[in-house]
């Protein structure tokens, strides 16, 4: 479904990604692990075209998306839950969700999607008219995921959804992810949390200093000492 080959990117003189290749098949849930500054966020922002590619190929459902604008990537069916949630803080929960279904196609199904998201996160429906900025961290993360789902994506990318959340909320969010995956959604999960990710994904890539150093099925990786070594950067 998504195929990245030899991708590179960076800012100014700084190279952040060097020849990254990655594949996600339809219906998979894939993890992307790595320490801070490994280039994980840059990679997903390149896919979403918030950051420009410097080289390589990025093919989604058979067509090259590396030269599209950010909004066109969303229209094609890739939705990102950005790091730090990036909500519209002064808008209500409802308005944030409505904006999630901004693309022309998504607008037609807005009310149906809304129902789906509020079913998934019932807490949000209690907070419908509250400003997003006043929600708790966990609720904001739910809203961010809900907003991304509103566009009816084929591929959902989550950038560190567990960051700064209490264990209880982390559990809720990963349960929701598993549920969505079971319904057929393809998911790319970017995380720092090693064990949590390996338990929840089918396959996993480890990114280190802008390069993929290890990849494989998560059952195999769970006991692989090389993963921990690469991950800890020792």
């Amino acid at each position, binding site marked *: 479904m998504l195929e990245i080959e030899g991708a590179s990117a960076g800012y100014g003189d700084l190279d952040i990604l060097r020849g990254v290749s990655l594949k996600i098949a339809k219906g998979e849930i894939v993890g992307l692990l790595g320490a801070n500054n490994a280039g994980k966020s840059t990679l997903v922002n390149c896919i979403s075209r918030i950051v420009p590619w410097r080289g390589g190929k990025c093919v989604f459902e058979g067509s090259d998306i590396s030269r599209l604008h950010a909004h066109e990537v969303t229209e094609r069916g890739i939705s990102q839950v950005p790091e730090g949630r990036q909500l519209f803080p002064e808008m209500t929960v409802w308005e944030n969700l409505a904006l999630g279904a901004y*693309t022309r196609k998504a*607008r037609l199904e807005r009310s149906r999607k809304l129902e789906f998201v509020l079913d998934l996160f019932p807490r949000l429906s209690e907070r419908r008219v509250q400003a997003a900025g006043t929600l708790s961290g966990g609720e904001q993360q739910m809203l961010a995921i809900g907003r991304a789902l509103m*566009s009816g994506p084929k591929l959902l990318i989550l950038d560190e959804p567990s960051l700064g959340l209490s264990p209880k909320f982390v559990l809720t969010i990963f349960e929701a992810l598993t549920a969505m995956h079971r319904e057929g959604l393809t998911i790319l999960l970017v995380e720092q949390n090693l064990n949590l990710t390996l338990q929840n994904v089918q396959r996993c890539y480890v990114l280190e200093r802008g390069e993929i150093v290890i990849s494989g099925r998560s059952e195999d990786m769970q006991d692989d000492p090389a993963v921990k070594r690469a991950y800890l950067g020792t």
Partner: protein
Amino acid sequence: MIPPSSGLIWGLEMEILYQGVIQGVLIGSTYGLIALSMGLIYGVSGITNFAQGDLMVLCMFMTLTLSTLLNLDPYVSILITMPVIIAVTAVVYRYLIQPISSQQLMVIQLTLGLMFVIQNGILMVYGGNFQRVPSVLDGDVLVIGDFAVVQTSLLISFVATWGLAGVLFWTLGYTDFGRSVRAVHQNAKAAALVGVDVRRTQLIVVSLSAAILAVSASLLVAGRPIHPGEGLHYTVVALMPFVLGGMNNLLSILVSGIIIGVAETLGNVYLNGPLGFAVPYAVFIAILIFRPQGLFGSRS
């Protein structure tokens, strides 16, 4: 001891005051409208056009030409000035400003350069004399209650301003387009991620702001002389409510416009000569000194 006639004088004084305040509210609404056009652009792209006043003066002179050539009333010529100014502004924004819009300082300098081009371009075409654009409402007055006499044109500006503002606020608050504008304002990156074409939204908002300028020009042109060199003056008159209103809170910008308008008329009522015109500026600076966060803002 109170002299017998003091009641009468007191009444007269109050009438002058009321008259001044009403006049100020009416004219200030239009100032607020020009400021609103600045606030809209600032909200979605973080920049300010220092040639905004000159663009409006350009519209005013277009109404002059339309009036002499086709005998059109300024209120009717909006239909022509608006598309023209939208086209000019959109081209300038798209090709000159948007590519450098992340560098605020350069944008300011560039729009100051545009100010010279527009202002002196008008001067070259129309010459340096004051001119008047005739309107059907010239000299028309309305009596409100039993004391206030206002020019009909001012009353029309007031109604038009608030009508336009109402439509604008409704659009921003309750439509998909409006939500996308606010989304770009609050978090441009997230807006792009949900599928908003940020650059296109900015361009549309800039065009919208140009449309507002065309309307303000026609509202102001009735009954006042126009001059090519007045652009900077209008820019400053608009930037005061823009700053006082916190630069992106549109309703506070409109209300601040009224404050500046009232300060101007009262200054002219109670101070003789040109010093009366200094009052709004003094009020502006005083408010900045005592309320640095703007009139309606809270310290963040």
